[in-house]
C-alpha cells in the first residue's frame, strides 16, 4: 500500500515537472516602448517577430511619451525585470551608459557579422569609447509641415524645399489671420528647447554642438527669429499660452488652425494614422527644413537617431539581441516604413515602401533627403544636466523675461558651475 503510494506520487510529480518545463521553453522578453497603443508599426513588428521566433514571446511595457525618460530611469535603477527598451533621446542615452544600464554590443555584432554600414554612419555617431551600445531602428529628420488649405485661402505659395528662416517668418506672417479663439496662426512652435537650439546647430554646421559646455552664442539667431515671430508679427502662439494650455504640435496642426509646424518626420506617421482614424482632415504637405542664407551647405537637416538597447541586467540577452537585431534589420525597416515611420536603414527598397505608404503626400520624397545630417544633441556625459539648464533658460528667453544675451550668459555660467561639481 505504502509502496504504490510512493510510486504514484513520484510519477505525478514527474509529469507535472515535464509539463511546466515544456511551457517554460517559451521565453518572454519584456520590451519598453513609448506610446505603444497609438503606434501600429510596433504591433506589426512584434507580431512578425513572434511568428518568426515561436519560442519567444514579447510583452510590451507601454509608457506615455511625456513620462518616458523619467519612468524608464526609475524602472532601470529599481532593477525591474526589463530586457529591451527604446532610447528616446541622446541625453537619456548618455545617462544610461554612465549608469551602466546598457549591455555593450561589440561581441554580439562581431559574432553575428552584423553589417553596420547599412545605417549610413549613424551607428558610428552613437558609439561611445569604441563600444556600441544600441542598434538604431528609426531616424527622424526635422522638416517643415504645412497646411495646404490655409495657404490656398491666404493666396500664398506653399513653402518650397529651398527656403531660408527669414522667408519662413515671412510666410508665417502672410498666412496669419483672425484673432482670439478664431485665430489662424502662421506657425506653431512646440515649447521644447530643441525648436530654438536646432536653428543654432544648423548655423554652426557641425563646428560646435550643444554638448560643448562653454560657448552658446550660436543660439542667438534662432531666438531672435522666434521672439520677433511671437511678439512683433504675432504669427505664432505666445510661449506662455502654449505652456499653460499644454498645447502640442500634433493637436494644434490637426485642428487646422496652424499654417506650418517645424517638427520631426515622426509626425508623418502620426498624421497618416490619425487621418485614417478620422481624427483630422487636414490637407497637408511637407518641405525640407529651412536653412540660413550664409550656410556653406544649405541642404542640411537636423536628425535624431532612435536606437534600441538591451538592459545590462537582463537574463534573456540572447532573445533580446534577436529582437533588436530584427527591429534594426531591413525587414524590420520595411515594416516601419509601411506605417509612415522613417527607419534607420534607408535602402532604396525601404524608401520606396515609405513614400508609397497610404496617405503619404505626393511628390514629397525630396523633402526627406538631405545632403548633410547633424545630430540634434550628440551623446555626451553630462548631457542631461546641460539640456536641463538650457531648457530652463530657454523658457525665460522665449517668454521675453530675460534678454537673449542674458539668457545665453546664464546658460554658460550655470553649465560651467555644474560641470565643475
Amino acid at each position, binding site marked *: 500500500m505504502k509502496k504504490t503510494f510512493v510510486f504514484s506520487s513520484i510519477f505525478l510529480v514527474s509529469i507535472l515537472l515535464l509539463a511546466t518545463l515544456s511551457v517554460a521553453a517559451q521565453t518572454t522578453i519584456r520590451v519598453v516602448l513609448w506610446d505603444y497603443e497609438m503606434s501600429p508599426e510596433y504591433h506589426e513588428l512584434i507580431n512578425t517577430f513572434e511568428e518568426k521566433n515561436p519560442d519567444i514571446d514579447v510583452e510590451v511595457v507601454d509608457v506615455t511619451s511625456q513620462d518616458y525618460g*523619467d519612468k524608464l*530611469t*526609475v524602472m532601470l*535603477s529599481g532593477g525591474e525585470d526589463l530586457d529591451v527598451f527604446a532610447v528616446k533621446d541622446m541625453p537619456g542615452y548618455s*545617462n544610461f551608459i*554612465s*549608469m*551602466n*544600464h546598457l549591455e555593450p554590443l561589440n561581441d554580439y555584432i562581431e559574432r553575428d557579422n552584423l553589417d553596420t554600414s547599412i545605417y549610413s554612419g549613424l551607428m558610428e555617431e552613437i558609439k561611445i569609447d569604441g563600444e556600441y551600445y544600441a542598434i538604431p531602428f528609426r531616424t527622424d529628420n526635422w522638416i517643415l509641415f504645412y497646411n495646404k488649405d490655409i495657404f490656398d485661402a491666404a493666396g500664398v505659395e506653399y513653402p518650397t524645399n529651398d527656403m531660408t528662416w527669414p522667408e519662413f517668418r515671412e510666410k508665417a506672417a502672410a498666412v496669419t489671420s483672425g484673432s482670439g*479663439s478664431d485665430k489662424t496662426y502662421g506657425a506653431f512652435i512646440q515649447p521644447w528647447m530643441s525648436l530654438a537650439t536646432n536653428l543654432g546647430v544648423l548655423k554652426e554646421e557641425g563646428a560646435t554642438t550643444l554638448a560643448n559646455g562653454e560657448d552658446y552664442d550660436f543660439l542667438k539667431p534662432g531666438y531672435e527669429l522666434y521672439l520677433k515671430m511671437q511678439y512683433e508679427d504675432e504669427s505664432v502662439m*505666445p*510661449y*506662455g*499660452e502654449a*505652456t*499653460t*494650455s*499644454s498645447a502640442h504640435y500634433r493637436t494644434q496642426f490637426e485642428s487646422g488652425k496652424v499654417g506650418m509646424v517645424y517638427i520631426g518626420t515622426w509626425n508623418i506617421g502620426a498624421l497618416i494614422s490619425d487621418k485614417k482614424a478620422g481624427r483630422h482632415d487636414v490637407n497637408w504637405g511637407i518641405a525640407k527644413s529651412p536653412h540660413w542664407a550664409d550656410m556653406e551647405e544649405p541642404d542640411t537637416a537636423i536628425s535624431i537617431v532612435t536606437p534600441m538597447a538591451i538592459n545590462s541586467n537582463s537574463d534573456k540577452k540572447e532573445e533580446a539581441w534577436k529582437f533588436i537585431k530584427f527591429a534594426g534589420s531591413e525587414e524590420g525597416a520595411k515594416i516601419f516604413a509601411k506605417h509612415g515611420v522613417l527607419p534607420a536603414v534607408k535602402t532604396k527598397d525601404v524608401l520606396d515602401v515609405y513614400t508609397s505608404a497610404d496617405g503619404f503626400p505626393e511628390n514629397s520624397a525630396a523633402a526627406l533627403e538631405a545632403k548633410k545630417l547633424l545630430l540634434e544633441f550628440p551623446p555626451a556625459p553630462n548631457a*542631461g*544636466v546641460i539640456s*536641463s539648464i538650457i531648457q*530652463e*533658460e530657454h*523658457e*525665460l528667453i522665449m*517668454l521675453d*523675461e*530675460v534678454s537673449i544675451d542674458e539668457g545665453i550668459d546664464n546658460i554658460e555660467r*550655470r553649465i560651467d*558651475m555644474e560641470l565643475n*561639481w
Partner: protein
Amino acid sequence: MKSIKNFFNNIFKSSDSGAMVSKNRKTAYFFLLPNFIGFFIFTLIPVAIAFFLCFVRWDFSNPMRFVGLKNFTYMFTDQTFLIALKNTFFFTLVSVPSTMIISLGLAILLNKIIKGVKFLRTMYFIPYITSMVAVAIVWNMLYSPSMGPINNFLRNMGVNNPPGWTASTDWSMIAIIIMSVWKQIGYYMVIYLAGLQGIPSHLYEAATIDGANSWQKFRYVTLPMLTPTTFFVSIMLLIGSFKVFTQVMVMTSGGPGRSSNVLVYYIYNQAFVYNRFGYASAIAFVLFFIVLAITIFQFKKEEKWVNYT
C-alpha cells in the same frame, strides 16, 4: 526557555504595578507593535540611510564615494538652492497667514445655524478632498494669460495688463499660493469650526452684560479661547507649507526658469533627473532641520500665548 519568558514578563513590570497592570501594559505594547514595525521599516530606516547618504556622492548605479561635508559646502554656493529656499520661504510667509485668516473668517461666518449652512460648509471642504493633480491642471488653464477666464475677467474690469500668472517669473509663486490657499481653507475652516463650537456660550453672555461690541467679543473672547486651535493650525500649516511640491510639479515644473522652484521640487530634480542622490539627501536634511527648528520654536513659545482652560 523559562528564563526568556521571565525576561519578557519582567520588561513590562514597573515598581508600582501588579500582575494585572503589567499584563495590560504588555497587551498595549503588542497592539502598538504592527504600526511601529511599519514605521520602523518604511520611515525610520530610510531616514537613517538618507542621513548617511548626505555625506556621499552616488548616482544609484556606480559605487558610492564618500565626500564628507562637500555636499553642504556646495549647497550654500548653489544659486538654484538659494532660489528654491527663497521661494519656499515666500510661499510659507504668504500662504500660512492667509489660510489662517480666511479659514477663521469662514468658520465664524458659517458657525450660525441658518438655512444652507451645511451645504456651504461641504462646498468649501470639497476642494480639500479633490486630487491635487486634477486641481492643478484646471487652475493652470484658468491662469492662461490670454485665453484664461481669470485674465478675461480682469480685462473686463479694466485692468489693461493682467499678470502672466504661471507663465511669468514674477507671478508664478503667487499663482501657486492662491491656488494652494483656495484648496486648503476648507479643512482649516472645519478645524476652526470645531474650536469655535468649543467656546462656552456663557462667556459671550458675560461679555454682552459687560457691554462689549462684536469686535471686542471677537478680540477678548473668541481669539483667546481659540488659541489651542490656532496653535495646532499654525503648526500643521507651517510644516505642510515647507513640503509644497505637487502643485509646482504639475503647474510650472519649477518655472518659468526657476521662479517657482521650491525645496522639495529641487530635491526631486537633483535625485531623479540629475541622479545626485547624495546631494539631494543633504538638501532634504537641511529642510528637515529648518522645519524642526521652527516647530521647536513654536512649542517653546506655546506657554506664552496658548490658554488651555
